[in-house]
């Protein structure tokens, strides 16, 4: 009988033994080493053991009897110190064992972030039963706090388990969304929301700087100086193959032990490797399914077969009770198409990724019933063109009649609740339509309150109207924001506030976007709406901004950029001009030009030079002129009564005051102001978005002018007596525009759409409302008046300014 020695009693080697004994129980005399003082147990069920939903005894795969029945010599709790390939022996702490065939199944070791404090007591990894018991022990302290570093599968299962154990748990995750290797942003958003509902605090985009504590762990410090208290820190940031024995034995090792598809090491035909420790052509394996496939292949080959291990697509599940997610295949491929289904009420998100009429990936959250079926379609490469229209609804809908939403609405009983916010049932709506002769959605809203609050039931109400009125009902034509949604800008803005949606992912899920991550039309708009509505809570998503706003400069036709520093009210000084001249010389800026808004524009700057240009300008006191922004651009002024014989007021002073008050604010489209000191209007205030004409008795405030593609004189808003009043009215008007306009809609178009009198009604005739607009603008400025140039000089978004690779001209040609 040949001697087989296996190092490591994990899931791969456990399955290997099962196959081996099944195929030929007498082929080998087996010795099994394991550093852990126990045999094989189902490691992937450690999370339920941690949470208390399973006991360790339940997850034991092979007990003492099993090993005894199969004559396995168990060397548990004994480390292997050496593999001597020349003598063909494995050296353990308690003596050596000869082998004819050797299997290395050493698994993987957790990756430890190399930060200060990582070795403190109370910092644990999460790989085996001892780690699990250490966490259970730590959770015994009443009120104890845990920080889990890593929002992947293992980290989140640990977090949920510790929370069930009664701990106060925070998850720190480096990426922008949880489980980014398995989920897209939309599913990541739902997962985060579900975990937060369990009382787990989730912090994405967070990088660990240090683990704090003297004698034992006391907290975790992030790179942004945020600190968390912690009695326990769980590091679950990944694994790497455990290869030390293989390296010492002179076996070929890449990231893991290099093997052939037959599971044989590359330079010793009698030594095999299996499980998480292997590296097959650069591929590593961390999930259990390929490990089991490997075990089967290896069992056959140890018995003289020629089986081949072929890696397959993998599916992922998270073992947290009550969370249903499923991810399989590839959902980041290029040239892909996608089908997305969202059900906000049921918190369901499904996304199928297609390429060449084949399903290549699937992400599901909240409804995973068809996960296995989709996974089969991915694995089989089936042509789905025949069922494309109904594919997203799952297996049960294939070959059947397409779903008819109208039939579903018709089948609802009269007491079925349509509007959850106001408790309005179907019968009440139908009665109101028929008895009162209602034909429009607004009429139904007015009479029944259905769809009048959050609006989530608007579609249902419209279907009811269509059902009741037939052709007499024609829904109001709403121009959707883009192809990702049927909702128009106004509905989206209203629902962001009504449903308190505070992230792009939340908007897309709760408003049932038809795509997984939006498009170049809707993302910038949503980003603006969220910045405007939740200035203190929403984190501006720069990736949802156009290039000029991302790099804080205007891209030119040759790929260079122009830079316009802010000159308050168009006023400058010799010091500022010298600084500009120095920058122009230092960076060989080819063109310097005065703008129509009374600023100096430097054109032809290379992208990688921008931070250095800004640094020099910043030292001279300049901040960004926001010449690239959907925001306040310039306040143009004339010299006013300081110098001009006709000047009636200090127009320059008012312009500077307005600009200093309003700079930095984001608006739906660009905003240009001007203040003229007299009706001769040298600052051309009557063609600006907002203009002021100073007169002897005060200030005439104008708005809704245009002098671009369209030419339009301003409308008069009102006349006020003092500068303070002028400031309040202009700021309130700007805030009203910020809150009510559609993204990219200039003031003149917005005001025309809603009516000039409506603007006057809200700003002039309603002092309380005006004051509220003003106060909200002031509040938002607390978060907006940060010079983006100085931020970038200090390193923010530095990836944006890295030079492109320089390709020699000949090579490029």
């Amino acid at each position, binding site marked *: 009988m040949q001697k087989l020695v296996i190092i490591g009693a994990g899931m791969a080697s456990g399955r290997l033994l099962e196959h081996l004994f099944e195929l030929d129980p007498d082929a080998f005399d087996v010795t099994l080493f394991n550093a852990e003082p126990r045999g094989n147990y*189902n490691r992937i069920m450690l999370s339920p053991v941690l949470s208390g939903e399973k006991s360790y005894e339940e997850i034991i795969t092979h007990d003492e009897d099993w090993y005894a029945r199969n004559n396995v010599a168990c060397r548990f709790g004994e480390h292997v110190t050496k593999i001597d390939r020349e003598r063909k022996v494995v050296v353990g702490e308690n003596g050596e064992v000869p082998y004819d065939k050797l299997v290395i199944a050493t698994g993987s070791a957790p990756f430890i972030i190399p930060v200060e404090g990582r070795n403190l007591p109370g910092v644990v990894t999460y790989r085996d039963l001892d780690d699990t018991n250490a966490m259970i022990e730590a959770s015994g302290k009443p009120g104890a706090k845990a920080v889990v570093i890593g929002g992947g599968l293992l980290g989140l299962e640990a977090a949920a388990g510790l929370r069930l154990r009664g701990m106060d748990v925070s998850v720190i995750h480096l990426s922008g969304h949880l489980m980014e290797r398995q989920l897209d942003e939309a599913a990541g958003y739902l997962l985060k929301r579900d975990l937060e509902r369990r009382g787990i605090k989730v912090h994405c985009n967070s990088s660990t700087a240090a683990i704090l504590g003297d004698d034992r762990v006391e907290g975790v410090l992030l790179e942004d100086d945020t600190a968390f208290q912690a009695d326990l820190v769980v590091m679950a940031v990944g694994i790497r193959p455990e290869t030390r024995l293989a390296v010492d034995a002179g076996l070929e090792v890449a990231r893991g032990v290099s093997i052939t598809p037959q599971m044989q090491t590359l330079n010793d035909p009698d030594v095999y490797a299996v499980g998480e420790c292997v590296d097959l052509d650069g591929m590593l394996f961390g999930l259990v399914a390929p490990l089991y496939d490997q075990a089967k292949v290896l069992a056959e080959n140890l018995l003289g077969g020629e089986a081949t291990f072929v890696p397959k697509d993998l599916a992922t599940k998270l073992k947290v009770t009550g969370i249903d997610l499923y991810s399989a295949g590839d959902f980041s491929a290029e040239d892909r198409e996608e089908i997305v289904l969202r059900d906000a009420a049921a918190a369901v998100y499904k996304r199928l990724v297609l390429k060449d009429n084949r399903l290549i990936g699937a992400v599901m959250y909240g409804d995973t019933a068809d996960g296995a079926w989709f996974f089969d379609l991915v694995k089989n490469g089936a042509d789905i063109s025949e069922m494309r229209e109904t594919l997203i609804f799952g297996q*049960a809908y294939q070959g059947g009649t397409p779903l008819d939403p109208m039939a579903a609405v018709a089948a609802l009983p009269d007491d079925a609740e349509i509007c959850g916010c106001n408790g309005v049932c179907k019968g009440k709506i139908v009665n109101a339509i028929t008895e009162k002769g209602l034909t429009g959605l607004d009429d139904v809203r007015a009479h029944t309150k259905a769809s009048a609050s959050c609006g989530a039931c608007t579609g249902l109400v419209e279907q009811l109207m269509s059902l009741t009125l037939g052709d007499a009902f024609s829904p109001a034509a709403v121009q959707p924001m883009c192809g990702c949604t049927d909702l128009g800008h106004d509905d989206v803005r209203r629902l962001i506030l009504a449903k308190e949606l505070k992230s792009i992912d939340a908007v897309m899920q709760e408003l049932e976007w038809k795509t997984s991550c939006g498009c170049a039309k809707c993302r910038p708009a949503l980003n603006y709406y969220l910045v405007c509505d939740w200035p203190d809570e929403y984190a501006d998503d720069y990736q949802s901004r156009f290039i000029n706003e991302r790099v804080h400069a205007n891209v030119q036709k040759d790929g260079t950029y122009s830079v316009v520093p802010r000159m308050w009210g168009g006023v400058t000084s010799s010091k500022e001009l010298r600084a500009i001249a120095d920058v122009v010389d230092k960076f060989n800026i080819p063109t310097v030009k005065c703008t129509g808004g009374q600023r100096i524009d430097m054109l032809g700057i290379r992208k990688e030079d921008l931070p250095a240009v800004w640094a020099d300008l910043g030292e001279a006191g300049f901040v960004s002129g926001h010449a690239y922004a959907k925001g306040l651009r310039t306040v143009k002024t004339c010299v006013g009564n300081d110098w001009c014989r006709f000047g009636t007021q200090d127009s320059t002073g008012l312009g500077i005051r307005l600009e200093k008050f309003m700079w930095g604010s984001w608006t739906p489209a660009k905003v240009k102001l001007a203040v003229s000191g007299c009706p001769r209007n040298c600052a051309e205030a009557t063609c600006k978005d907002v203009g002021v004409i100073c007169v002897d008795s005060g200030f005439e405030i104008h708005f809704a002018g245009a002098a671009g593609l369209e030419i339009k004189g301003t409308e008069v808003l009102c006349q006020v007596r003092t500068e303070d009043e002028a400031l309040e009215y202009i700021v309130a008007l700007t805030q009203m525009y910020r809150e009510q306009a559609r993204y990219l809609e200039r003031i003149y178009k917005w005001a025309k759409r809603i009516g000039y009198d409506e603007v006057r009604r809200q700003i002039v005739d309603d002092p309380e409302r005006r004051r509220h607009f003003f106060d909200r603008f002031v509040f938002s400025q607390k978060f907006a008046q940060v010079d983006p140039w100085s931020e970038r000089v200090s390193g923010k978004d530095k990836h944006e300014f890295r030079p492109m690779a320089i390709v020699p001209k000949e090579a490029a040609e």
Partner: protein
Amino acid sequence: MDAAVLDTTRTFVEVTEIWIPDGDRLVQAGGNYGSHGEFEAISGMESFAKGEGLPGKAWLEERPVVLKEFDGSYFKRTEAARAAGLTSAVAIPVFADTTLKAVLVLLCADDDVRTGAIEVWAEKDGLLMLEDGYYGAAKHFEWVSQHTHFPRGQGLPGGVWAANTPMLMRDLGSGYKFIRADSAGRAGLTTGLGMPVPVPGNRAYVLTLLSARGTPIARRFELWDARTAKVGTSGQAVLIDGICAHEGPLWNEDNPRRIGAWQGLVGKALGSGLPAVEHGRPSIVHGYDTMVALPIYQGDAVAHVVAWYC
């Protein structure tokens, strides 16, 4: 297994009965009365209007109700219960959305030996507080529970509340070092079954059955998931967790058991949407004399079935 102790003398729950609406009254629709034939006979002749007796109170108030003292209470069968040695009861309404489908009543006998817990937790100010509970001889554990609350996601009640799904916890006393664990260990409580009790409106209730070694509530527990999000439109249910004194773990991650509607007693609860109680029938899993299957709704659909066997 911890929950699997076979040398039981008496179980914690003596009588289990089902009451279903018939017009404007609740009528008996089965149950397990064990050796309490007289109580069974009297119960068979009884019916309850809304608000009447314990089942009627659960119906009227649309919430689970614990009654620990029959004398002088609204309990209608006090004499018969006293004769049978029954001292306490818990009524669990089963609602499909806003429609009452049934009321499940568990009756217990008090003595100095029997330990276990049937608890009703209710949401108040963002926390789960103990509405009431019956603990038998576990008086210290009762006191601890009365002074405990659970945030979302913490402990068995908080976990059930957050996940909106039934859960089965092992090792309540030994490995489980949560707030009440020390006292639970001393009381001999081992296995905990928690389940949401959906009622009309937005109120959250969680029912927990905590089983002890010597006087178990059950020796076999099963949790079945019947949500369309899990099983599609098949009408089936899949066994997501379970533990048995005879068979050990019942769950199988790779190949979970499935049943269809009307297939066995769990399938009966799944198909009818009503609780099922069986006693002394061969159809019960081998080795067990009685079983209870309780459907748990989400909206108007059965989402889960929990079953326990003695």
